[in-house]
């Protein structure tokens, strides 16, 4: 951008305009973040009122702890399932909506509303619908298939159920982007394919998906961040990390260590590790965002 379009050059005014934002960011983001780094080097009790220097001790004990390793593992697995589950389902629904008539905002709104769905509500609703004993879904599932839902006790099932809830909640967000990206594909490409007689499905995976690859990449990153950070309410309200730690995701473990088991230092060390995870994801996003040119019409 040309500097020439900048009509004002009072540094003082600029500083004043930026001040409120900067102040909030420093006070509530940067300072606590730095403090997290500091605390991660201490062992603490009772919400940080007792602190003992341990250096990298927290990290060592995390990295050598079976529980933490397992937690890391299930989180990564969960993220993978959520990311690709969400993408797959959203792609399907998005493509259907796009194929019919994108302007129909009735369909669109009916498909994207889960964007507004609070994770806590999503958790509670499905907790009930899929309740092992009371759930109506469970009831019919068990009636119609030999399958029994027992996710209060069955780790893999609990994992799967949380994934379903997480995917459900995230569908709206993904559909928004996929429909928008598909709509940005010039209509003539579709028409050209019609003249050539390219099938709908072939068109999807040979043309549309590659063409919306930047959006898909973006969604992979956003969904990963979501799976890592925003699924806390699901765990808290549905499984509390269980059974057998099958849903003891990093974020939940962090919360529990910090606010239930009072190990703030240990929790801070986990925050630091999460920070590394976000940083990597963000870096990847930037890499990919600049790697793909945006396809114009």
């Amino acid at each position, binding site marked *: 951008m040309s500097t020439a379009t900048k009509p004002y050059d009072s540094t003082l005014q600029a500083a004043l305009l930026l001040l409120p934002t900067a102040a909030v960011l420093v006070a509530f983001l940067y300072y606590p973040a730095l403090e997290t780094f500091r605390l991660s080097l201490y062992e603490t009790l009772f919400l940080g009122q007792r602190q003992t220097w341990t250096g990298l001790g927290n990290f060592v004990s995390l990295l050598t702890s079976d529980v933490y390793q397992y937690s890391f593992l299930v989180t990564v697995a969960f993220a993978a399932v959520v990311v690709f589950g969400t993408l797959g389902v959203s792609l399907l629904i998005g493509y259907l909506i796009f194929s019919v008539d994108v302007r129909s905002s009735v369909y669109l709104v009916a498909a994207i509303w889960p964007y507004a769905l609070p994770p806590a509500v999503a958790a509670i609703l499905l907790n009930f619908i899929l309740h092992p004993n009371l759930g109506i879904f469970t009831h019919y599932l068990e009636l119609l298939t030999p399958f029994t839902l027992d996710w209060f006790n069955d780790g893999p099932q609990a994992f799967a159920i949380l994934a379903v809830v997480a995917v459900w909640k995230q569908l709206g967000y993904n559909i928004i982007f996929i429909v928008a990206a598909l709509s940005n594909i*010039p209509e*003539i*490409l579709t*028409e*050209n*394919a*019609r*003249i*050539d*007689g*390219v*099938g709908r499905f*072939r068109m999807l995976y*040979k*043309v549309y998906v*590659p*063409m919306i*690859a930047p959006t898909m990449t973006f969604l992979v990153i956003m969904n990963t961040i979501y799976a890592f950070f925003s699924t806390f309410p699901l765990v808290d309200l549905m499984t509390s990390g269980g059974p057998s730690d099958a849903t003891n995701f990093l974020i939940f473990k962090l919360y529990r260590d910090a606010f239930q088991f009072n190990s703030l230092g240990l929790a801070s060390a986990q925050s630091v590790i999460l920070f590394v995870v976000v940083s990597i994801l963000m870096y990847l996003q930037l890499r990919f965002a600049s790697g793909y*040119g945006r*396809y114009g*019409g």
Partner: protein
Amino acid sequence: MSDITIQNLRKTYDDVRAVKGIDLEIDDGEFLVVVGPSGCGKSTTLRMLAGLESVTDGSIAIGDRVVNEVPPKDRRIAMVFQNYALYPHMTAAENMKFGMKSASEFSRDEIERRVEDATETLDIAHLRDRKPKELSGGERQRVAIGRALVREPDVFLMDEPLSNLDAKLRVQMRAELLKLHRDLETTTVYVTHDQTEAMTLGDRVAVLEDGRLQQVAAPQELYDYPTNQFVAGFVGEPAMNFIPASVRQRGDEHVATAPGLSLTLPAGSGLDGIDDDGLTLGVRPEDVSLVSNRAGVSESFTAEVTVTEPLGELLLLHCRLGDEEIRVKVEPRSRIAAGDTVELAVDTDRLHLFDSDGDAVYHSSVPEQETESALAD
């Protein structure tokens, strides 16, 4: 056989009547250009030909087959779009192959051969492995044409294929398209809103307005004998001057009069029985001239120059004649300034008369006239 017969073709969108009944025959091997102002229904017509748009009424036949209900892929047509419609993630070669591969009726070798041929014909063999974004506009359009070529269609349909190119490139691609058509002799329907393109490319030009065909004719015929005022005004730059006039029969002669102007019309078809007030006299800017340049012109008239536009090779005068403005092309180095009064005369061989409906009732020259030719040998 790939001539096209269009009968009473109509297209209605919910409340818009885009095409209002077109009858047109396109010969096998012909290059037909459809031209008209924006929104006149050019694309709609072409898209019905392609099968991308359903036909509301009427019929389209390619060869002997009525194709109204034939899906696009079975019409043996290929289409070239304005913005190329290349798949951005595929190389040039992949773009050309993609459609054929989907059709699955072609062998690998056949596909390779055709792509080979097409890239050679279009001189883009070296671009095969580039993606669209690594190509210039002209190269992209060439690849798009290549993609149409490989299908070896009976009919090419092109919707403003050059209008995304800059002026220089457009002129160049125009020439190339002509050469290509001369080589392949595939029936081509070409849509444009640019009259220069229409004139220079078409074997025949179809002028469309408001969903109706106005005239279908060879380019020069269109220029010289427009069938109505719309065509007369649409073709030619600057546009033909239109002067409201009345024509009176005086003995054998017909005289056209307008404020500040009185012209004896050369005898010609259509003059019989005309004795009318609500007529419009049409004369092109280059058919008006300064009197001093034409010796022995009796029926001159004067007009005041309001604006002069030196265009280098000529000087365009905007003159006030009665209440009308007329444009006159004169010698570039004429020393004429705004505010001057000039004496003008018209080339009476190039006069046109339109009635109140806009239909041409009279052209002062006769269509079949021979023009002197300057052929050496």
